[in-house]
């Protein structure tokens, strides 16, 4: 009985830990020269993983005051993550394909 309880407690802890580890991360795909989400609301400290699902290169960047970054060019299947540390509106684009745009509201 004690062993069963211990196993249950350990499993519960692992589930909670795993859920907690991914609570603040959203995956945004780059597919057909578009972002899978045009707008997104997240909290300060959350992350977005930008995954390239197109068979050619993309280059995600932002020059916004709330977050300025350039992930560089990367190929299909690769993903790069950004953690947003400041509240505000972040406009994100692909430098290679300027039609690809999305807006992230960091609250």
């Amino acid at each position, binding site marked *: 009985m004690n062993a069963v309880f211990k196993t249950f407690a350990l499993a519960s802890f692992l589930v909670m830990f795993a859920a907690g580890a991914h609570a603040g991360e959203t995956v945004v795909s780059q597919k*057909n*020269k578009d972002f899978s989400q045009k707008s997104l609301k997240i909290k300060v400290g959350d992350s977005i993983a930008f995954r390239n699902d*197109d*068979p*050619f*290169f993309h*280059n995600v*960047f932002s*020059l916004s005051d709330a977050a300025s970054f*350039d992930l*560089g*060019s990367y*190929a299909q299947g690769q993903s790069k993550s950004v953690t947003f540390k400041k509240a505000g509106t972040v406009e994100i684009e692909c*430098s*290679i*394909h*300027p*039609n690809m745009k999305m807006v992230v509201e960091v609250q």
Partner: protein
Amino acid sequence: MAADRSNENNSISARVGTSYPPGQGEGSPEGRRPLRSLLIRGAIAAPLVLGAAIAFATKSAERMVYDTDGEAITLEAGHPSLAKWRLPDVPMPENNVSTPERVELGKKLFFDPRLSRDGNMSCASCHSPMFGWSDALPTGRGFRSELLGRATPTVVNTAYNPIQMWDGRKATLEEQAMGPMEASSEMNMDLARLFKWLNDTPGYKAAFQRAYPGEAIDHRTLSKAIAAYERTIISNNSPFDRWVAGDHNALNARQVRGFEVFIDPKKGNCSVCHSGANFTDNGFHNLGLPSWGDPNPDMGRFAQKPLPKMKGAFKTPTVREAAATAPYFHDGSAATLEQLVDHYNRGGVVTTNLSPNMKKLDLSAEEKAALVEFMKALSSPQTAVELPTLPN
């Protein structure tokens, strides 16, 4: 080809079916004579089997290639997989839907040299219909023949582009229209003088009133009218367009082969940037041209978006009407389509900050020739352009 064969088979079936007299089923006199019946049925079945075999063989022989989008493309006229190369209707903004009056006014303005400071340069001076709506020069010539830094881009199908200019600094045709008039190195026009003159010219006053009733003659209506005219400069009836629509005879075998090389990422890889029906991703790429190695090279898109990858990157032009718009590249450094293909085949010359889409291609002479032939099949039949009567 397969569609043709399929139709042939259908017609064979139809003939067999219609020549089979009514009443020759199981209970017919034919049914009471087994040997003759078998012979007749065999005679009927043989062409059907043969037809099916031909259809199967044809189907197996269809050429298919995975393109730069990772999609399976069947190289057969009119095949549904070619749908993404069908040009849609010309898009236009809600506040400047084209009308005959707007197009007519825009045409007058486009060809009117009085819109330049010296009264000798019009939009058409550089964007000439005689040279594929460009100027056939390596880089343009501006005010008093000043040498400009970049090649004159064609106006053809710019109506489809969501971003304009080699560096993308203008979004729409309306935003772009005034640029050359304002630029001191180009038409170098005194805008105050221009709008006073337009407002004082009865012919223009009436034309503006017909095109934009109740609106002022200013930079907004001037830009709108020129943009409306530019939206009529469209290439959408090339041999390639007709082949995509289903005309088997529109392209020859070498041109189809060239299209295959164009879209195959393991061959030409061209459509990774020259994508879709207008043959552009409207994106920015550094092609590793020799001029990128100059002491102070043109930084291109970097001036608009200061990101490392945008250094020396320029907007992908359409390939439509390529045969009429030599020389090529933003610096006009390729005089012919053959030279252009050779550059890509090398994978670029100055490879600092090279686009990741560029790579050494190792194309054979046959593949390079086929590519050129395919690009020549992207030209629509030439139509005469009637010059407008300019207002006074």
